């Protein structure tokens, strides 16, 4: 019951507002072309007719919410979930690559952060290049990566997960470098007096102190990793995955399908970010955290 009041009502209110704004936008954006059409056809529709028309174009600039909802419903619930026409299937393809990539990305990010915090040589030499690596436009590289892997016979999940990893390790690395360096000076001094080894200081002090940074970074990383997986689906020939749906949709100007795929992608994102959030809250509670 509390959940209803605390979560569902605010979310639905906000979404309702969004939907209203969306309808308005649809009129604004689809209007000019509709007017062109009517003019060429020599029609002079009434105002309401015009509204309805802007909300029911087959390939609108901005599809109306109900058009997207219909398509989403049809491709989610009215086809078998494992068929290539099902958004559930495509979402799953993307989700699996995202999760693998996110997992690797988080681990890699943490490993890099640990290295940077513990070895001056790494801090000095690696950090600038990690930053550089992130400024390489991934979409430019993604096709080459996919092509290279395909050339040596590796296709499917792995190359996509690799792109996800590439995008997601960075937020984790940056956040964890900060987090692992965030313990208070006195807490570090205490470890120093025990002559604690670097590993002990790491596990008993740096890791617990970095937890808030870790989860904030992981939320960003999971979103980035989804983007990576979708981007990586483009050069694979638009066969499976949300990226493939987006691509084929945009290739044929099927805006409604694009938006349905976008909605699916967003739902996956919400799911993933929420999962990370729940994991964060559980961890905090286990660490004796007190309500903020």
């Amino acid at each position: 019951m509390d959940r209803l009041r605390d979560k569902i009502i605010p979310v639905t209110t906000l979404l309702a507002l969004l939907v209203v704004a969306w309808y308005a936008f649809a009129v604004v954006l689809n209007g000019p072309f509709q007017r062109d059409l009517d003019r060429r056809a020599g029609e002079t529709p009434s105002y309401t007719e015009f509204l309805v028309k802007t909300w029911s174009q087959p390939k609108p600039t901005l599809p109306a919410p109900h058009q997207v909802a219909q398509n989403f419903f049809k491709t989610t619930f009215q086809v078998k979930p494992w068929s290539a026409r099902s958004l559930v299937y495509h979402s799953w393809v993307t989700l699996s690559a995202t999760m693998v990539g996110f997992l690797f990305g988080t681990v890699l990010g943490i490993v890099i952060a640990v290295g940077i915090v513990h070895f001056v040589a790494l801090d000095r030499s690696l950090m600038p290049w990690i930053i550089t690596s992130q400024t390489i436009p991934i979409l430019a590289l993604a096709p080459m990566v996919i092509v290279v892997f395909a050339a040596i016979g590796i296709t499917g999940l792995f190359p996509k997960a690799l792109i996800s990893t590439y995008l997601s390790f960075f937020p984790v690395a940056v956040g964890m470098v900060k987090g692992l360096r965030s313990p208070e000076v006195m807490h570090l001094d205490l470890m120093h007096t025990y002559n604690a080894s670097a590993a002990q200081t790491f596990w008993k002090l740096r890791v617990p102190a970095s937890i808030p940074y870790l989860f904030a970074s992981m939320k960003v990383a999971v979103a980035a990793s989804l983007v990576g997986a979708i981007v990586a689906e483009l050069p694979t020939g638009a066969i499976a995955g949300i990226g493939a749906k987006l691509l084929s949709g945009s290739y044929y100007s099927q805006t409604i399908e694009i938006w349905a795929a976008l909605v699916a992608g967003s739902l996956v994102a919400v799911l993933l970010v929420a999962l990370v959030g729940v994991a964060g809250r559980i961890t905090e509670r286990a660490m004796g955290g007190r309500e903020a």
Partner: protein
Amino acid sequence: ADKVTLQLKWVAQGQFAGYFVAKDKGFYEEEGLDVEIKPGGPDVAPEQVIAGGGADVIVTWMAAGLSARDKGVPLVNIAQPFAKSGLELICPKDGPVKTEADFKGHTLGVWFFGNEYPFYAWMNKLGLPTEGGPDGVTVLKQSFDVQPLIQKQADCISVMTYNEYWQAIDAGFKPEDLVVFNYTELGNDLLEDGLYVLEDKLKDPAFEDKMVRFVRASMKGWHYAVENPEEAAGMVLDAGGQDENHQKRMVGEVAKLIGDGKLDPALYERTAKALLDQKIVTKEPEGAYTTAITDKALK
């Protein structure tokens, strides 16, 4: 069976119906071939894939193929299923552009990624600079669709007769609402979808034989597709193509461009010259095509 990997220039669609038909109807199998068809996508350069060893044979446009050859990827055309070009520039009739003379000072949508050469060759011929300004044309890198036309971001856009043209029609333009500049009709066409392999591999007789069989089966596929466009479209859909109606129409339109598979040397010369004129290739290409394969395959 001998393995052959074919890299397409674009996603699975009617444009490549012949290959899908040949695979589906077992024409490749009959020739003792096990063919894998890899769809492309935006920013998959088939020339790069073949240079990296990811494919044995690729479908690409001749301009892109020759330019890759100029950059050190020794591609050789072994067959030319598309005898004619399907490229067009379309403009709404109620817009400012009605003839070639009206281009000056307006914005034209062009596909890049190796597809821009015919357009630049044409502008070169018209003597129009492409850097914008009142005396030239402003070029817009066009996206996958006909939105720039609908949004009025460009005065004319590029379309393929078999694809985007119909999207414009679907979007509500009637054929009589459009001014069409067809590259073939204007004599500006450069050769489109052909089959290319690496030169040194071709020296291997076993590979050459494989290609002979491949081209033979592919052309058989194409002829079947030309005669049975509906059935061919179904096979494209099975291979991952989208939008049934659209694919049927596309196969039908593509059928009009298909020839016997042999490269017309005159068209080749024109393409090579246009590229040289624009300095897209730096030297006269040599050995960029062979008729040996088609001669053996299509007796």
